[in-house]
């Protein structure tokens, strides 16, 4: 990346944010995945008992997908918060870009869970013994909305990075 600064001391806060824009995005995405997985586990599995630990119709590929995503989200929750602390101590935290990442990560996880894991792999359903359609619709529409808002925020912050880069080029 050409924008990498050599000396951190001389950078303004805006420039620092831009220097760590990728880390802001990744920290957000990982935190979003961890957050939505935690909500899923705490609310739908443990409190409401809507989801099952194991559904008799679960396929082997469903088990593998579930295990991979569970492990990833478990690691992502902790890792993304350490990345967050790292951004703070470097004074490079950028709330808007980070939030964009959170919404993208959370929306992606929920949409993948709702479409691929629930429907295609038959891992488990949102609820049992009720008409599942309204639940599925709400689940997946919320997910898609989060992805859309996330993408908009990421594009907006990306634009301001490009603007600063262009300004710097003119100044030289």
């Amino acid at each position, binding site marked *: 990346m050409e924008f990498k600064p050599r000396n951190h001391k001389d950078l303004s806060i805006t420039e620092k944010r831009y220097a760590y824009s990728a880390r802001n995005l990744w920290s957000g995405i990982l935190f979003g995945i961890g957050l939505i997985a935690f909500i899923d586990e705490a609310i739908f599995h443990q409190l409401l008992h809507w989801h099952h630990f*194991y559904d008799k119709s679960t396929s082997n590929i469903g*088990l593998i997908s579930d*295990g*991979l995503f569970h492990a990833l989200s478990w*690691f992502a929750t902790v890792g993304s918060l350490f990345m967050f602390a790292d951004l703070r101590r470097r004074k490079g935290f950028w709330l808007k870009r980070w939030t964009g990442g959170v919404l993208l990560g959370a929306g992606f996880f929920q949409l993948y869970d709702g479409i691929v894991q629930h429907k295609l792999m038959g891992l488990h359903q949102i609820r049992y013994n009720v008409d599942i359609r309204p639940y599925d619709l709400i689940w997946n529409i919320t997910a898609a909305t989060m992805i859309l808002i996330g993408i908009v925020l990421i594009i907006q912050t990306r634009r301001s990075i490009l603007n600063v880069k262009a300004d710097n080029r003119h100044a030289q």
Partner: protein
Amino acid sequence: MHSDGHLHDGGTWFEPMLLVSIAFFIVIYIGAAAYSGRRFKKWPASRTLFWILGVMSGASALVGPIADRAHMDFTVHMVGHLLLGMIAPIFLVLAAPITLALRTLDVQSARRLSGILKSWPLRILSNPISASILNIGGLWVLYATGLYGAMQHHIILHALVHFHVFAAGYLFTASMIYIDPVPHPLSFKFRMIVFALSLAGHDILSKYIYAHPPSGVLKEQAESGGMLMYYAGDAVDLVLILILCYQWFKATRPRESLAV
């Protein structure tokens, strides 16, 4: 029961021998800590405490009430597995036994020890990938084949499986979090990716056990044992993840804060 008879026959010599070795491991560590504390900087008391906790949690899986009930109740077996394969290794790795050994031994023996640690067989074994395969792959062999059932009938097999669970657990932990000196350190990113994949292997196996009880295990016991393995495994791995991420956080500290 036939299987019980076998294990109790073994128990007559096994239990006293194990209790003696527990005392031996604790005494030798405390002795080494005191000895090296006089020659160099004082050895931290927290590490001695970790060592004692590690030896005790490993031992509690091998003798006493958990060990006695483990071959009748799969859920209790899983408690023992957690203590021996996950909790004991974390405490023992945190106790930094190799650092202590290098400080305590005379120069020639210390050189020989670090030579062994640098050798290619240990380098291969302590790679996160091979350590994960030995650790998680070993568990798959244990629970997804007939090995678990066979282990209950043969004392030697029983001992070998327990030794493997512990040794692979230690190797895995030591390959992920560096407390002792590491001749060929690997990047945080690489270790984190391998860690997440082996954690996934552990999760998948827990649900697999829930769905497919190992040989000779009742359905309800396999279900509660599988869920225990899943959630308790998460809790223990959370500790490892926190240590690994904290080590990353310290290592990537920005330069300017050093000057302050």
